[in-house]
């Protein structure tokens, strides 16, 4: 059902866990539907530009939800905020080699939680 890439990220999720003193948190999902994602960001500065210095996530959900969280953390880590914000829901699913149609909402959640965290960061400033 799942691609090799999804299973690989599901088995060994990257950047998993909580974070002490994050610069921003984004949380999205609904436990009733079976998915909750929480993203923690550490924002650094390089050559005058803000970038994603570190990202951690916590996920309650199926294999697609876990793999999507893991994948987006890899896609955005080290990127400037401007670059990272261009990452879309589809980018996450594509990078995973596609997801079954019923599981696409899981990759949407990962991107949404990340964008929520950025929004919260910008709102704080």
């Amino acid at each position, binding site marked *: 059902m799942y691609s090799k890439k999804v299973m690989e990220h599901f088995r060994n999720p990257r950047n*998993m866990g909580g974070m002490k003193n994050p610069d921003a948190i984004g949380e999205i999902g609904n*436990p009733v539907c*079976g998915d909750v*994602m929480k993203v923690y960001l550490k924002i650094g500065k390089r050559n005058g530009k803000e970038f994603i210095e570190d990202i951690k996530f*916590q996920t*309650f*959900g199926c*294999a697609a939800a876990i793999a999507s969280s893991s994948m987006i953390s890899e896609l955005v880590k080290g990127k400037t905020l401007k670059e990272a914000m261009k990452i879309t829901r589809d980018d996450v699913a594509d990078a995973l080699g596609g997801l079954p149609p*019923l599981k696409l909402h899981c990759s949407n959640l990962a991107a949404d939680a990340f964008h929520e965290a950025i929004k919260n960061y910008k709102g704080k400033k």
Partner: protein
Amino acid sequence: MRMVFVDLEELKKAIKKDTILVSVIHGNNEIGTINPIREIGEICRDKKIYFHTDACQSFTKVPIDLEKDNVDLLSINSHKIYGPKGVGALVLRDDIKLTPLFHGGGHEGGLRAGTENVTGIVGFAKACDIITKKDVEHMSKLRDELIDKIMEIPNTILNGPKENRLCNNANFSFKSIEGESIILHLDEKGIATSTGSACSTKSLKPSHVLTSIGLSPVDAHGSLRLSLGKENTKEEIDYTVKSVKQIVEKLRKMSPLGK
């Protein structure tokens, strides 16, 4: 948690003037509940209503006495007792006249058109001969051991009863984690299981059985069903318990829902 057996008082209330048939599952496939068919049958007999029970899960595992249990119609099947797939039987009292669902030839007393699956039927009969009480005792023992050991995991719920439970069924909910992730990790360890989580279905709704016994949707999403067979061993139970413990711990570490 609500009652896990069919409530006799609720059943009585559900029977209306125009009710002609009551059909109740004998052994529940998800949570292993063995329903009180004798009492249900009595109610039906008193009210002069036909009683059908689906005993596919319980057949050969729980004694059934058609007379004493007041059963008018009984469904059973072959593959649940190690017989060939694609064969089942509907046992019914002589005086019940059914309308056929398949039309055509006059096979099976005009009840079901189509050439009989003779090899399947013979296989089903042979499977009935082969299964023994010893198999049931063996599975019951392993099930109890499995339940006791899995329940050592903190924040775990046993779904379904401890007593009056099918000998081959165990079902748990683990707080804060999701069922599909559990079963995929178990699959990688060579253990085939199932879950009532919506993520494993096409409906996006958790198991109706688990929600109707009072589980919250989150706990229903975190459910794991383990079904035993007569050839399972104590070593396999130990391996399964060890694997489940590792997986639950791993998934809880990455959960945002608290422990």
